[in-house]
């Protein structure tokens, strides 16, 4: 058994085990056990990965395995990881683990809920470990579909509309994506060799420039939809706000990262020339995402909407940094992915927990919560501070790296957009501090709040897991950035070999 395949297998086995459970308690116990094992596996993966590197293993991909699947089309089940995917797998494992505990009280069709949630996570894990674009695409779609049921059945508000909108927009994105992937496949052997979906193989060949120009936008926008690229981000606020807690956590925390990861790993890595040529268009779009998302968050009154718009802004920053195409910024992008994943998952978890106590998500209806739910309030403050980029938390590391990297460009265009994007830091501070002020401080708005209890053990477990991740990266950023740096090298070398183009 390939070690990495366990990441897909454990969720599937968990799902099978869940189908045999008799009651609600059994279901969540099995889910929690399965995902704990998954978290443990992720920890083992990180340790094994670091050990391999320290032992001097310099191969780009580790723990690879390759099984031929469809011979005539040369489709393989090919898996392997580098530092970037390890970070993503670890992030996913943490968020899913936290998500299971955050949904401890889901009592409407619990079995179906946990099955869909874990199925979704198996798609995400599969995506991050795939080296073959076919399996990558398969897992990508597998991750999107359970979302429809999760939001449609267990969501709130205009859930049916949001679920449908989200699913259709993401599937529309995958329409673009599929064309891009097929284009790469049919140009993967310009010398007349065997066509392949394997991205490490394709990285070795030079895709003709004309083909790159045609297929790059398909691939980048295709993944970009999931990464909330402006103006295709509109599914995100609706989807996130209607989704149940754990689904918002997983979706904003992990699923949106599939977008950034795909843009980087497939669109930019395999078609670097086109990426250089067209970067300016997407830089403009992502700058809009970053600033517009932040402003969008300022005017919202619903906690979930605030966080959804802030996700648009923060995920925009990921794509923005990737498109800067230098080592520092791209490192920042990956750290931002992990950081935002943990942060936003924590936010959504907290919002869910607060909602279950106050039965409202409108900030103006709440106040003085610090006095009644101190634990959750403190964690909320931590999440907020991480989000606005306070030193000591992961957000700071990510943002500094991104903006330093972006400002390394000496041409006017890059500098202007960087300055514009940095304004989001200020705007973020505005909405975060405002929310904290209204929500947690001041007098208690409603007498009913006096009797709401603070966090249960499972809620503490869920939030502490995520806080641990956020502070670990904040205090010891080298742990993560070293891991990423090493894996980024071959990619950066390939991209840096080309001249950087600005439009001014």
């Amino acid at each position, binding site marked *: 058994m390939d070690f990495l395949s366990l990441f897909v297998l454990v969720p599937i086995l968990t799902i099978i085990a869940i189908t045999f459970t008799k009651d609600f308690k059994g279901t969540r116990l099995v889910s929690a056990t399965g995902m704990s094992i998954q978290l443990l596996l992720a920890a083992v993966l990180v340790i094994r990965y670091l050990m391999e590197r320290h032992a001097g293993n310099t191969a780009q991909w580790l723990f690879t395995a390759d099984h031929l*699947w469809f011979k005539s089309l040369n489709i393989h089940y090919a898996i392997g990881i580098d530092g970037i995917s390890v970070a993503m797998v670890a992030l996913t494992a943490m968020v899913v683990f936290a998500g299971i505990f955050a949904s401890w009280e889901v009592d409407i069709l619990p079995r179906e809920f946990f099955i869909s949630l874990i199925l979704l996570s198996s798609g995400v894990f599969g995506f991050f470990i795939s080296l073959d674009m076919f399996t990558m695409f398969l897992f990508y779609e597998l991750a999107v579909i359970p979302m429809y049921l999760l939001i449609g059945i267990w969501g709130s508000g205009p859930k049916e509309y949001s679920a*449908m909108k989200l*699913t259709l927009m993401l*599937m529309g994105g995958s*329409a673009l994506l*599929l*064309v891009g992937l*097929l284009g790469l496949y049919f140009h993967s052997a310009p010398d007349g060799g065997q066509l392949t979906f394997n991205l490490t193989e394709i990285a070795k060949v030079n895709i003709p420039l004309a083909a790159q120009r045609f297929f790059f936008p398909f691939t980048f926008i295709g993944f970009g939809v999931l990464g909330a690229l402006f103006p295709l981000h509109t599914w995100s606020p609706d989807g996130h706000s209607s989704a149940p807690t754990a689904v918002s956590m997983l979706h904003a925390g992990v699923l949106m990262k599939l977008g950034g990861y795909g843009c980087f790993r497939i669109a930019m890595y395999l078609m670097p020339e086109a990426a250089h040529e067209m970067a300016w268009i997407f830089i403009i779009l992502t700058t809009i995402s970053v600033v517009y998302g932040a402003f969008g968050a300022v005017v919202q009154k619903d906690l979930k909407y605030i966080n959804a718009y802030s996700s648009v802004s923060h995920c925009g920053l990921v794509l923005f940094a990737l498109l800067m195409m230098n080592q520092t910024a791209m490192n920042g992008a990956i750290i931002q992915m992990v950081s935002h994943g943990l942060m936003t998952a924590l936010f959504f978890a907290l919002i869910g927990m607060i909602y279950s106590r106050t039965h409202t998500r409108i900030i103006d209806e709440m106040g003085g919560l610090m006095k009644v739910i101190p634990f959750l309030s403190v964690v909320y403050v931590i999440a907020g501070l991480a989000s606005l980029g306070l030193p000591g938390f992961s957000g700071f590391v990510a943002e500094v790296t991104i903006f330093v990297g972006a400002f390394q460009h000496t041409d006017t265009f890059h500098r202007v957009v960087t300055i514009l994007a940095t304004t989001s830091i200020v705007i973020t501070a505005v909405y975060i501090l405002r929310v904290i002020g209204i929500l947690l401080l001041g007098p208690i708005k409603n007498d009913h709040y006096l009797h709401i209890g603070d966090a249960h053990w499972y809620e503490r477990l869920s939030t502490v897991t995520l806080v641990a991740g956020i502070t670990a990266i904040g205090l010891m950023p080298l742990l993560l950035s070293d891991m990423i740096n090493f894996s980024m090298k071959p990619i950066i070398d390939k991209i840096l070999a080309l001249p950087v183009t600005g439009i001014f």
Partner: protein
Amino acid sequence: MNIHDFLTMRNELLLTIVAVIVLVTDLNLKKDKKITIIPVAIGLFFITLIIGYLPVPTGILFGGMFRSNTLTILMKNILNIGLFIVMLQSVTWLKREENREKISEFFLLLISTLIGMNFMISSGDFLMFYLGLELATIPMAALAAFVHHQTRSAEAGIKLILSSALSSGILLFGLSMIYGTTGSIFFTEVAAAYTKAPLQVLAFIFFFTGMAFKISLVPFHLWTADVYEGAPVNVTSYLSVVSKGAASFIFIIVLYTVFSSITFIWKDVVYIISILTMTIGNLFALRQKNLKRFLAFSSIAQAGFILLGIVAGSKLGMTSVIYFVLVYIFSNLGAFGVVSAISAVTDKETMDDYNGLYHTNPKLSLLMTLSLFSLAGIPPVAGFFGKFFLFTSAASAGYYWLVFIAVLNATVSLYYYLLIVKAMFINRNESPIAYIKSDISTRFGLIICTIGIVALGFYSEIYEIITNLSFGIN
């Protein structure tokens, strides 16, 4: 004819024998014992199905009118699976009081159409092709009108027979022109003599139109929805799956072999009709409330996807089409199986009836969801692989924009498939359909579909077998 020749026609002869046995058995049964014909027919057909997979000599008979090779045998075997599932799913409905007297007719007509399809697939000249086509179509009209006391069923029969007569007329006109311009009706000779002469192109267009009617490609699809809605569920499922599959098979064979010299003409036509068929099929499906009508339009859209494989004009395209039809048989019959299981007991066929179905019939709902996801092309089920390969084959010919339009259409189709999922899982219903206990054969049919839907993609060997048997024009 010696034994070798008999074996070459094995599938057709076996089916004929089954038909005769069913007929003779029926004649010897008393009125109240007619129900025993069900296990006899299904059992015999099952044996035929199994024998179909045994190795058999291939060859040419009747001076080239009948050709049997490994590919055609595979196609026939695929259709056999489809018919077998349809038979299993029909049992509950056949056992109903009003159908009991006509059980053998149902099987006879079904088997006759399949014999026609088999001859059509094995045809080596246009005469055999036409005979097969008519043998496949005329009993079909009788099947559509099976519940003759129901106006809509009778109407479906009439509509089917009239539209197929019209399409046959057009087709025959095309065939006569082909004969007139090439001096032959044998596929190989026609192919050799076919040039780009205007009259020959015209002949092709007539032929194409006739076939487009049978596969219900846009704009020749107008009969489909009414016939599908009016016919009994099991006949509809047979029409939409097995009959359409057979038509797709023969269509691709004829296009790839006989009309290979005018590929550049039919490619453009297929390209445009593919877009029209997918899009219009989808747009109409969006508005349907009756599930049979809905599945009819969705099957029109699916035919548009099949054209994506045909337009590729390559071995890959052919493999994709055959593979897709196989996947489609399981997926669509899965969906129809559920509709049939529910309709046979409750007569309920509209989407609103399915509101809250999951709470009373979780297994049926799950299978329905699985089938719909497969039809929509969602992983990890087989439909994903089927569609992916169709898209790949179109992309291999450089038709990236076509692929893009197709995938967008797949997204639109996902919307309406999700509407049913929504009805079953999300919508509330004060009085949902009560728990339905399906009989053993229906369940068996549904299990076969489930296994097919789940396993087909992962078990890549089947795709490789089809690849090895497919032939191409390049």
